């Protein structure tokens, strides 16, 4: 396999990719629900966010990068819903945060036996 490898990006650049990818994740996920966000914006942010996270995880520990990514998406969509549909019940926020805590726990404990 004579595939050419991507040039290795720096760690701080990879973290910038995770943050930008996380923001774009909020955009496309919100676009799935709210028609105010144009389809082209949803499609482009979806593709770019995937591309960024895949590039970032070539440099960063996968579990940590995905934990940050999932955290941004979850908190971001909660904020978007509060703003656009006028509130989320406290019980639902608590359950979403509990779910997020377990997701982060599971992602961060993933290195164990990889490879």
């Amino acid at each position, binding site marked *: *396999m004579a*595939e050419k490898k991507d040039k290795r990006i720096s760690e701080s650049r990879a973290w910038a990719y995770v943050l930008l990818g996380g923001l774009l994740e909020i955009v496309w*996920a*919100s676009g*799935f*629900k*709210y028609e105010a966000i144009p389809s082209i914006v949803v499609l482009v942010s*979806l593709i770019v966010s995937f591309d960024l996270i*895949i590039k970032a995880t070539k440099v960063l520990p996968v579990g940590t990068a995905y934990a940050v990514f*999932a955290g941004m*998406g*979850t908190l971001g*969509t*909660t904020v*978007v*819903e509060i703003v*656009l*549909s006028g509130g*989320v*019940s406290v*019980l*639902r926020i608590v*359950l*979403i945060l*509990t*779910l*997020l*805590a*377990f*997701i982060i*726990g*599971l*992602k961060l*404990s*993933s*290195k*164990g*036996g*990889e490879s």
Partner: protein
Amino acid sequence: MSWMLLIAAGLLEVVGVIGIKLVARNNNWFNNIILIAGFISSFQLLVRAMETIPLATAYAVWTGIGTVGAAVVGMIFFKESKSWIRIGCILGIIFSVVGLKIVS
């Protein structure tokens, strides 16, 4: 019904993630089809589920099921850690999803 679609969307996301791993290993057309078909069908079902399920709940459950599925696949096929912390987190995610279903 929407919840069935949402759970199916989460599981299909896992198919897409497996596709990513397979393509990284062997970049042939078959593995690329698994990757693309997994994600496209997952996104379509997520959009359908979101017609009735609120954004934050749908997104969190979709990501949660995707995470659990990827972890289980990793434990079975890719020799990832099976520590009790990970099992506890998986149970915690399932518990939270059930809770979100109940309050919805």
